[in-house]
């Protein structure tokens, strides 16, 4: 079985190529750091496995995201490395290519976005490049699928065994560096049983102050390297290596460069950017784009479709199921479980699919077009005041979809403290799972201002997140950071297939959850509300969930919650936020949203409804998010802190809103 590792700078189209050469699908976006973990797939109709690794600028990682690639090289043995490069920015892309070529595994370089290069009036002679770099080169334009089949054929026909014998790239480093590399790698070969090319690569990376390699050397007691550390650093070898590589690239590119007849190219990107990144218009445009996104998801497309789906599910489908079950003589117990439990609960959540799809389609569109990097830039100045940078904004926006992916996207942030703060404030971003319950309440209490009320909840979440970030900035003593370097990719005309795949990839988790967690949650709630200490109960007031809810009622009444059913539903929300609305359906014994909304009328006022929504926005993160915080921070302490602090904030804020609101209205 052949394995291919896909590596390259961020934003070169690796994931697009991955999707086109493999059967399976991984998520693509037009901003740095979309691939948050490695993804694998098979090349169509073959056994060749392709691994898509996160984009890296060099093998020396600055972010957690980037360390995935170097760790892959240290622990896995790929047969071929497919190095995807942006042909228009070959100079800096080749800096990484050199590091990969020195590694010794056969490399194929894909010059992607070749059309952008041609448009700039430049072309490279491929045989010259190939000869100088000592590897095979293919040109591609992945967005239009140009050159993809040739690339796939090449990968399938690679005689990997023979290629292995080909020597790795050896640059002429200055004499002193060369000598240091030779001495250390000879000892590594003799005493540590390494292959010459691997030992040479490892030594170069060590000299180059690669943090992961330096730790690796300490861990494996690679004395030939450890003993020379001071010497390498004192001689500033790192800089000499960089200069040699740069000179090699310059000479290679000038030898291969061909000038095409001057093309009169109207720069779409700079025209769009004159508005999007305009110093004054930038921020209003940013707000307008997000307002539009919410309008589309809630008012224009999402909600009307949801309403239709709801009337279908609660009307014909549940009546038909009930009749069907009665006709086959199912027990009343089972009928109740299926109709009032499963169809009402799971179905109730499924009706929100149109809204969630619409929101994710908008996010995918922004990612694919290249807007997200601009958003990071436009918001940087504001984020700076709370000790974060514009890059934190992207994980937070992704958090609107799902906090789990948001927290994982925070891996691209360079400073550990900023990354931790972003992780801790991410759960305050109102994820799509919280939408169903908002929709239900705004339909009941604020029918005329649905989008506005939902938007206010979202903004409240952002405001709480920002305040907490400021608080953390002070207690963690975060200094004004400088590592904020954002690449602005060229705009792409969004492609429907890529957006659809992005939308589906983000939404499928929700659909999947409907079948698993939400299903289990609703069955659990149904059981708890139909069984009590005395066994099966016909009166829900004697059930376990009633007992539990009633016990907690005194704690929740100051924030406006007067019904134990709501409290029980909130508990199930910790499983997954989507479950809250389905639990309510079950607990209030209704099968349609309309009936539930009517029930709410007697239990909440608009003020207490709003206070409840605020509580739902902020209280404990769901299980999946808790798990991700644990894995990303590597500490239980932060998990406990995150749960307790959000509970406290949620209670305090909804208390204030309910008490003050009750006085005013």
């Amino acid at each position: 079985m052949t394995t291919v590792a896909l590596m390259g700078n961020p934003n070169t189209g690796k994931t697009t190529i991955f999707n086109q050469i493999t059967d399976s699908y991984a998520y693509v976006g037009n901003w740095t750091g979309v691939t948050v973990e490695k993804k694998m797939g098979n090349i169509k109709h073959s056994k060749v496995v392709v691994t898509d690794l996160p984009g890296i600028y060099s093998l020396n990682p600055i972010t957690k995201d980037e360390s995935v690639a170097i760790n892959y090289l240290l622990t896995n043995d790929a047969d071929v490395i497919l190095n995807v490069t942006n042909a228009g920015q070959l100079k800096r892309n080749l800096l990484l290519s050199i590091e990969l070529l020195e590694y010794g595994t056969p490399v194929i370089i894909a010059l992607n976005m070749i059309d952008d290069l041609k448009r700039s009036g430049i072309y490279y002679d491929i045989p010259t490049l190939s000869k100088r770099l000592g590897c095979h080169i293919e040109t591609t334009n992945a967005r239009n699928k140009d050159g993809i089949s040739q690339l796939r054929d090449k990968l399938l026909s690679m005689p990997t065994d023979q290629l292995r014998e080909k020597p790795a790239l050896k640059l002429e480093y200055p004499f002193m560096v060369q000598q240091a590399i030779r001495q250390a790698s000879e000892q590594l070969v003799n005493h540590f049983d390494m292959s010459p090319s691997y030992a040479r690569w490892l030594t170069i990376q060590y000299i180059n102050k690669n943090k992961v390699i330096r730790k690796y050397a300490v861990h494996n007691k690679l004395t030939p390297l450890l003993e020379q550390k001071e010497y390498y650093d004192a001689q500033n070898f790192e800089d000499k290596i960089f200069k040699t590589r740069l000179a090699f690239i310059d000479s290679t590119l000038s030898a291969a460069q061909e000038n095409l007849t001057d093309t009169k190219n109207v720069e779409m990107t700079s025209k769009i950017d004159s508005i999007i990144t305009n110093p004054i218009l930038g921020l209003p445009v940013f707000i307008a784009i997000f307002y539009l996104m919410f309008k589309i998801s809630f008012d224009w497309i999402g909600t009307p479709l949801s309403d239709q789906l709801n009337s279908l599910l609660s009307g014909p489908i549940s009546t038909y199921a009930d009749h069907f079950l009665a006709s086959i003589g199912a027990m009343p117990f089972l009928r109740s479980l299926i109709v009032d439990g499963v169809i009402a609960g799971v179905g109730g959540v499924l009706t929100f699919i149109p809204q969630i799809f619409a929101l994710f389609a908008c996010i995918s569109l922004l990612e694919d077009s290249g807007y997200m990097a601009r958003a990071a830039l436009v918001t940087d100045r504001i984020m700076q005041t709370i000790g974060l940078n514009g890059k934190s904004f992207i994980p937070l926006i992704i958090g609107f979809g799902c906090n789990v992916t948001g927290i994982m996207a925070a891996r691209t942030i360079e400073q550990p403290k900023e990354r931790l703060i972003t992780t801790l404030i991410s759960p305050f971003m109102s994820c799509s799972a919280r939408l169903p319950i908002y929709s239900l309440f705004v339909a009941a209490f604020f029918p005329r201002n649905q989008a506005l009320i939902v938007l206010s909840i979202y903004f409240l979440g952002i405001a709480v997140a920002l305040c907490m970030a400021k608080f953390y900035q002070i207690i963690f003593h975060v200094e004004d950071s400088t590592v904020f370097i954002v690449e602005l990719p060229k705009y792409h005309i969004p492609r429907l297939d890529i957006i659809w795949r992005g939308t589906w990839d983000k939404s499928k988790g929700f659909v999947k959850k409907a079948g698993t967690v939400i299903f289990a949650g609703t069955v659990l709630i149904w059981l708890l509300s139909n069984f009590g200490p005395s066994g099966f109960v016909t009166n829900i007031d004697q059930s376990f969930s009633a007992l539990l809810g009633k016990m907690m009622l005194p704690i929740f009444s100051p924030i406006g919650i007067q019904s134990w059913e709501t409290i029980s539903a909130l508990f199930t929300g910790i499983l997954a936020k989507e479950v809250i609305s389905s639990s309510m359906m079950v607990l209030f014994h209704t099968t349609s949203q309309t009936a539930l909304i009517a029930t709410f009328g007697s239990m909440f006022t608009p003020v207490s409804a709003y206070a409840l929504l605020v509580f739902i926005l902020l209280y404990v993160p769901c299980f999946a998010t808790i798990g991700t915080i644990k894995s990303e921070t590597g500490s239980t302490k932060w998990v406990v802190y995150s749960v307790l602090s959000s509970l406290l904030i949620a209670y305090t804020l909804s208390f204030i809103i309910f008490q003050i609101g009750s006085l005013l209205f």
Partner: protein
Amino acid sequence: MQLISESIINQHFSVCNIEQLDTPTKQRLHSLGIHDGSNLTVIRFFPMHGPVIIEVDHQQIGVRYKVFRILVGGQL
């Protein structure tokens, strides 16, 4: 607040003082192919000393104002 004159937009500078930057920033700029002596064009400033968009080797990147000041050194 110091106002940045519109006149330096689209002006070319030669990158210098990369050594003065912190290690990660320097490393990232190097990886982007930016080094002492690179040609830098100013594209845009954001208000309140927000980020600056610069262009080097046909690629646009955004950097913090502080970093920009160091990179253009005494040329401003």
